[in-house]
């Protein structure tokens, strides 16, 4: 399992992460980011890609 943290004080809801890891991140009907805080190891590559594309660098994988 991997744990995912999004610093919601940094997040500006740009949603770039949604495309890299659609199983983890989504924009809700108010255009706000929602995410799943725990995921299977198979999602690691996608979540790392999401970390890379976050303009605010608000996403962390907690090791």
């Amino acid at each position, binding site marked *: 399992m991997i744990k995912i943290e999004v610093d919601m004080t940094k997040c500006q*809801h*740009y949603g770039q992460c*949604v495309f890299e890891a659609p199983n983890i991140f989504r924009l809700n009907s108010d*255009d706000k980011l929602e995410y799943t805080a725990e995921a299977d190891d198979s999602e690691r*590559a996608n979540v790392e890609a999401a*970390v*890379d594309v976050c*303009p605010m660098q608000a996403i962390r994988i907690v090791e």
Partner: protein
Amino acid sequence: MAHPVVIVGASMGGLRCAEALRRFGYLGPITIIGEEPWKPYNRPPLSKEVLAKEVSHSAVAFEERSATADVNWVLGTKAISLDVEHNTVTDSEGETHPYAALVIATGLRPKRIVVRNSELSNRFALRTLDDAMALREQLQPGKNVVIVGGGFIGCEVAATAKKLGANVTVIHNAAHPMLRQLGEELASQLQLRHEAEGVRFMLKRSVEDLIGETKITGVKVDDGTVLDCDVLVEAVGSIANVEWLSNNNIDRNDGVLVDSAMRVMRKDDSPIKNVFAIGDVARFANPIFDHVPRRVEHWNMPTETAKRAASVIAAMLNQAPNYPAILDDDFRPLPSFWSDQYENHLLAFGLTSLADRAELVAGEISGECVFEYYREDQLVGVCGIGMRSVVQGYRSKFI
């Protein structure tokens, strides 16, 4: 021992390339040479939220991953020459670094305005963390801040300086700020929003002269106006750092020309097999748009090009059987940019600056809205203020 992959440029592109090399199965040594004293950090916040707070490396540093814990960092050191015949880079300390593969990620430096009195103090540009730290100290309530250049960085600094209580004037050479990227309708709308916050624009104007003894006290504009000025910020574009590549028969006319595998091209149009360029410095054709090589200074390009180069380097050095196939992979990264100015959150995909017209397709110009950008009949970009889901929905039209 095998020579390392040497990455010149310790910024986001260099870091992402090292990480991707590991992900693609390259286990050999990696050296990253960087001119700045800092490990890689995220630059966009330097003109936005970080500039409004206390500026520090920890506020913008990229998180380090275990996969790249064994990278050899050579920081505070500038690469000064390259020898592609002997596969070596020489740095400013006089050290020679042999490489198995080289990644050029030396990025950009800010252009400066050319004026008399150019030695006056309190002139700032904004590219590095050190630049931001120096500028942050000066952005105080009541200070007269003059910004030359009304592109994205100029406008973001204007918004931040205004928020901090400064008096802000922007001198810009076009009819509206951000005109080239946003088109007339959206650019003039954002100008109105800046003006409502109290920013003054002097448009189709340039700086004629700087006034002062040792420190700037005024700026003379080319219409004769003299502005009081305590702090001058120059945001007039950038220059690619390619001088150190001279004498290698490399095409470095506006950045470094690379093929779709990010391999640096010789002037005779043949690729150098083990020399790559990524990020702001790389000029390449993107088949999403056409076959014209361009440098794209959008934030996501260093990461995209770093990953592309890393996939090729790992396959080459690991002598992977699919190396030829990887070389031939399609590479069509979708440029993306965003900007925060007051409560206006812009998000764009594509290359809006290629467009000859823009069309409002959602929302209202006075509030949240989305524009499509066309070059003749080809959709080349989309940009929205707010309305993220609508803008995000366009990605599939490009990819």
